[in-house]
């Protein structure tokens, strides 16, 4: 009886948690449906919801003021959403979808620091809801009445949004625009206000989800990324654009988590499984399974490609003499760097970081640009390479040189396994599945204390004696990074590279001329994983330690930002992007407490000014000059 009671209590607890998750996911799904923007900043709206509700309630007092405060918070954040849409997103609807992601990620950084500035770094727990502070007995257990209230809220909001979408002209327009926004425009509907309204509504729902958590969960600055991860999973599992799907997915995930907590630690056939530890990955496991079985989600439908697509990608070109000369000068100056900067030893340390970042970004670019596979979990292979090398040195006692060879292989094998699933999907779904695999890898590293050192990671991962000095290690890194980058570039101009680019440009046509598209993409994915692993192994030995951070979603996003900054369809792009990003990160972080906001603002300006990335922009200018000369 007691087991049943605790089981029921956990299920109810799961239901209560599902409501807020659903609100966030519903907003995300609406916004994606109409604007086709995957809004990374959606978790930030949720976080803002809690913070603003905290202040509003403190200002309006308890009683009626409490509920007024929650409503006010949701509305205020809805207005923030509208402003964001009008000032930033409206300018980039026609940009490639990855640029939109980058812009919304910049918003994440800015909002996070704005919250830090306004509310400080302390966690803030709101007061209990008036009238719902007590609890009700259920099967002999006290169950918080506020949780029961939350359980009712989810279906209620689902019903209200459903009514809005099916019974009003606004809703009809939203559903029509979800399917074919260009046609809606040609029928005389101004898409601009429709987009603003939808974005504001989505932000409002997310903030409401956050505000409702005020008495249950302290407001803190980590909520944005954890929430967006969970919301992505819910939307993808439920099916992009399907609200009932989002609700079912939110319920499914919240209940599975509840069951895992209830099961606790269980012995299965003599193996002890800690189900409570599974809660960190259960949503990503669900997503991986759903995406493999039903690639477009539980209630979703296969997405038609958007009607308005960007211009076709220009073919990659082999460098001319000028490019070769520039590259040669660059390599020479890199070789000369340590002696030239002997008085500033930090330069070489920073240069190692930059070189590692260049290889990491180049490997991601390999599948993202020419391969057309937008991996959101590339840190998985960086981390596998780093952990692989570290564990081989620490636990297996291998010499550093061997670990540096085998570490990348570990990452490569990981990429072979994860890639097999991932290449079955495309677009946003592929991005989400790669993210899911990376989160699973992260959770394993984070929890497997005996092997990975858990949250502390592993220390004492030093290079062999002959490579121990900064200068020696710099030359090792330089050699391997240049070799890696050159190999990746060489492959793009080999028959394999042509096949991969053909598969990106038209999978059907490539298939029809005898290219095994999935196999080519799979091989490409594995190669990229291998080189990301090399970057990871180099990273581990350069720092002497390794932590789960290297596998975390933030690391994957760093790589994305680097590639996008440099320009997705430019070969020099990832190198330029990685250098600029690492240098900026280093410089900005050392000079201000609010480095994230600075970084975000810089990214935003770059995205708005250089939609082809920095290197892409330079190439365009050079091409324009060349064309002008040719005309004369």
């Amino acid at each position, binding site marked *: 009886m007691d087991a049943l009671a605790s089981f029921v209590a956990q299920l109810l607890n799961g239901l209560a948690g599902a409501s807020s998750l659903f609100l966030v996911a519903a907003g995300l799904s609406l916004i994606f449906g109409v604007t086709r923007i995957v809004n990374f900043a959606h978790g930030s709206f949720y976080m803002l919801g809690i913070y603003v509700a905290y202040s509003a309630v403190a200002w309006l007092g308890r009683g009626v003021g409490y509920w007024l405060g929650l409503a006010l918070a949701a509305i205020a954040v809805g207005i923030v959403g509208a402003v964001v849409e009008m000032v930033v997103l409206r300018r980039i609807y026609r940009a490639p979808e990855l640029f939109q992601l980058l812009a919304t990620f910049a918003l994440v950084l800015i909002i996070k620091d704005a919250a830090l500035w306004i509310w400080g770094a302390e966690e803030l727990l709101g007061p209990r809801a008036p009238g719902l502070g007590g609890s009700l007995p259920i099967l002999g257990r006290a169950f918080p009445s506020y949780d029961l209230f939350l359980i009712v809220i989810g279906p209620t909001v689902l019903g209200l949004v459903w009514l809005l979408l099916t019974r009003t002209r606004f809703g*009809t327009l939203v559903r029509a625009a979800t399917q074919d926004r260009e046609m809606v425009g*040609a*029928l*005389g509907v101004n898409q601009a206000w429709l987009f603003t309204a939808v974005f504001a509504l989505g932000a409002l729902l997310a903030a409401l989800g956050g505000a409702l958590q005020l008495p249950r969960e302290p407001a803190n600055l980590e909520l944005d990324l954890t929430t967006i991860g969970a919301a992505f999973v819910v939307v993808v599992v439920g099916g992009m654009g399907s609200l009932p799907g989002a609700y079912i997915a939110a319920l499914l995930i919240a209940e599975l988590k509840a069951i895992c907590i209830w099961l606790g630690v269980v012995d299965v056939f003599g193996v002890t499984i800690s189900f409570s530890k599974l809660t960190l990955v259960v949503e990503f496991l669900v997503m991986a399974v759903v995406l493999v079985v039903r690639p477009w989600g539980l209630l979703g439908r296969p997405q038609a490609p958007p009607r308005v697509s960007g*211009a076709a990608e220009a073919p990659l070109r082999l460098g001319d003499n000028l490019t070769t000369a520039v590259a040669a000068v660059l390599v020479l100056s890199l070789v000369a760097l340590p002696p030239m900067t002997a008085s500033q030893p930090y330069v070489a340390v920073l240069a190692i970081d930059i070189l590692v970042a260049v290889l990491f970004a180049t490997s991601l670019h390999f599948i993202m640009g020419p391969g057309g596979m937008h991996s959101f979990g590339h840190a998985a292979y960086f981390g596998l390479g780093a952990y692989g090398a570290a564990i081989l040195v620490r636990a297996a006692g291998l010499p550093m040189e061997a670990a540096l060879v085998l570490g990348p292989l570990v990452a490569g094998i990981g990429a072979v396994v994860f890639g097999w699933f991932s290449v079955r999907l495309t677009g946003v779904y592929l991005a989400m599945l790669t993210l899911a695999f990376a989160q699973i890898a992260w959770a394993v590293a984070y929890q497997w204390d005996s092997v990975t050192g858990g949250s502390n990671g592993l220390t004492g991962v030093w290079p062999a004696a002959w490579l121990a000095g900064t200068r020696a290690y710099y030359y090792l890194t330089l050699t391997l990074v240049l070799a890696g980058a050159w190999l990746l570039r060489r492959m793009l101009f080999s028959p394999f590279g042509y096949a991969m680019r053909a598969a990106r440009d038209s999978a059907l046509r490539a298939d029809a001329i005898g290219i095994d598209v999935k196999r080519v993409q799979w091989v490409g994915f594995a190669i990229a994983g291998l080189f990301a692993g090399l970057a990871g192994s180099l990273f581990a030995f350069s720092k002497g330690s390794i932590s789960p951070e290297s596998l975390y979603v933030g690391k994957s996003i760093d790589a994305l930002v680097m590639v996008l900054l440099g320009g997705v369809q430019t070969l020099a792009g990832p190198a330029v992007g990685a250098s600029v990003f690492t240098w900026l990160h280093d410089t900005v972080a050392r000079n201000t407490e609010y480095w994230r906001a600075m970084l975000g603002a810089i990214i935003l300006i770059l995205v708005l000014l250089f939609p082809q990335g920095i290197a892409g922009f330079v190439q365009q200018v050079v091409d324009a000059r060349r064309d002008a000369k040719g005309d004369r």
Partner: protein
Amino acid sequence: MSAQHPAGSLLDVRALCAWYGAAQILFGVELHVGRGEVVALMGRNGAGKSTTLKALMGMLDKRSGTLSFMGRDISRSSPHQVAQRGLGFVPEDRRIFTDLTVEENLEVGRQPARRWPDGSAAPSWTPRRLYALFPNLGEMPTRPGGRMSGGEQQMLTVARTLMGNPYLVLLDEPSEGVAPVIVEQMARMIVELKGEGVSILLSEQNMHFAELVSDRAYVLEKGQIRFAGAMAELAANDEVRRAYLSV
């Protein structure tokens, strides 16, 4: 031009050029539609008929030229502004909202009633009037667009545009890909619309269909107008038809 067509000019197009990405499709198209006219834009596949209509709506990345509709310049207007001026567009591939019911599809197209510059009422439509014009639609107001036959979708896409009470409808290939019986219905519908005072610019490959419904015709080839004249004149001109229309 307006001197040539004193009786209520609707649409005047001069030197219209248009591009798909880097490829130029139209090279200085000139055309004109007067109030109450049905005008056919003829040409083979790839001649630039659909591109012309899309360029008029502002649905292409790049266009240039002088576009005047009801005496106002629309060469810089976005599609929704053009539609709000009373220029309706019926796309060739129908682009029905398949998740929405017939009623809801019509609702998306709804715009306020219009008046002519002289103050008299312009043609205006309600779902009820459209169901009278397209009895098939009236039988299935709650059916989702995705569960309709091709011919029914063709009617719905026209009806949806009419809900915007346009002065002029751009009708892209109305006879393409539908059963002969539907083609006949479409022809009857165009004649009825003309009777209601709606002007129509239709793109068409089917000479027989165009002859049934049109007052005048233009012939496009490689993005340029090669012939302009009365429909009867085109029907009688074997040379033009052989050069630019016969397959």
